[in-house]
């Protein structure tokens, strides 16, 4: 078995950012851009005596999904929690700009092939958001990433791939929400405020951050799938995420637009209805929402394996 084939069967959750990046695209097609040998370390961490990484915790590069150039951004949670600083942020912004320039070149030189060769962006999140050691630069980078995502609207699908240990929180939680499509496994999470902060704000009686099951049903893949916040829930293997990415790359752009949760007046009108529903249901647990959506036995869904969950879960869909 080649190295790439071995990667395919690996747990996405257990894989490093680089393994995820290499495995998400076609065999042998990944070229890392501004990789470790370029040695773009954070200029700020050494001043603080903090360990540095040659890639600053973000792997960026390009591969192929068939004929589609796939721009990959993959965050490494084991390096300072995947938090985004100046260099890592610039790599994200640069990769998104690259996707735009590839699209524009294609549009200008080969308009008939746009659908067949349209680039796709895959962001494999593993982050709590801003890196506090360089907080201001990290925050400003988040705004730039958001700006670039809007530039790609209706042109290049931007896909959140969320199957990592840390998941996607803080300012990057906004970024994930703003992408076109979200693919998750049940073992990962998306949110804004992490469990410890909620516990601190509301008290342990309201939210016990050490209760793993509670944490997962509040922001985990199964919950996000039921709420319509994640479009596709996949098993925990690199191959499963890759198969989903291939299917998304083949979709026409208007179908991609229908997968969005936010980004237009009609989309936010639906979200406002969901907020009104929340005010009415006043959920004390995610299970209350699952019930309100039509799942009579939430506990059964929590316990269900992937196949049974997919067969049984009733869910909201973004465009419904």
């Amino acid at each position, binding site marked *: 078995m080649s190295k790439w084939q071995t990667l395919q069967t690996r747990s996405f959750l257990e894989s*490093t*950012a680089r393994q995820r990046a290499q495995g998400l695209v076609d065999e042998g097609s990944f070229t890392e851009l501004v*990789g*470790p*040998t370029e*040695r773009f*370390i954070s200029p700020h961490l*050494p*001043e*603080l*005596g*903090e*360990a*540095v*990484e*040659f890639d600053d915790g973000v792997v960026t590069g390009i591969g192929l999904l068939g004929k589609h150039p796939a721009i990959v951004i993959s965050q*490494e949670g*084991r*390096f300072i929690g995947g938090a985004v600083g100046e260099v890592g942020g610039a790599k994200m912004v640069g990769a998104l700009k690259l996707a735009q320039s590839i699209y524009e070149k294609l549009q200008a030189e080969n308009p008939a092939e746009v659908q067949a060769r349209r680039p796709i962006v895959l962001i494999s999140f593993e982050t709590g958001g801003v890196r506090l050691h360089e907080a201001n630069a990290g925050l400003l980078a988040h705004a730039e990433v958001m700006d670039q995502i809007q530039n790609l609207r209706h042109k290049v699908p931007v896909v959140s791939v969320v199957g990592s240990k840390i998941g996607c929180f803080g300012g990057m939680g906004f970024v994930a929400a703003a992408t076109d499509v979200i693919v998750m496994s049940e073992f990962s999470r998306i949110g804004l405020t992490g469990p410890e902060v909620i516990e601190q704000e509301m008290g342990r009686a309201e939210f016990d951050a050490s209760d793993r099951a509670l944490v997962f049903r509040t922001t985990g893949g199964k919950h996000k799938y039921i709420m319509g916040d994640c479009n596709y829930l996949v098993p925990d293997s690199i191959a499963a995420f890759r198969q989903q990415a291939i299917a998304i790359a083949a979709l026409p752009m208007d179908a991609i637009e229908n997968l969005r949760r936010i980004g237009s007046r009609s989309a936010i009108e639906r979200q406002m209805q969901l907020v009104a529903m929340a005010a009415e249901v006043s959920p004390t647990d995610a299970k209350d929402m699952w019930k309100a959506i039509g799942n009579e036995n939430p506990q059964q869904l929590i316990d269900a394996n992937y196949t049974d969950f997919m067969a049984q879960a009733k869910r909201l869909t973004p465009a419904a």
Partner: protein
Amino acid sequence: MALTQLKYEFSPATPRALPVPAVHFGVVGSGDMEVIIENKDLGGKAVATVVTPVTGFDHVWEMVLRRFMDECQLGNVAISINDNNATPVVVSLRLRQALLEIEG
């Protein structure tokens, strides 16, 4: 409080070349490290640079790196390590894993 930079030089008895321009391995997690080993014309010698927030382990680094160099006999290579408190066992392991990346 800046990071500590340690530099070492080795002269392998029977220097052999790295079969690829460069190889990278590892993640700078807590208690872990990354390494780049790359070809560089050094007249048969090998150099190693370690960047670490930890001080006072110069000899340990030298010992672990020397053992690795004795074993692999790479010449004309530069080794660059970013460390975050990896133990000697982890360091040895990561160095070997880096070579396995190319030599399978």
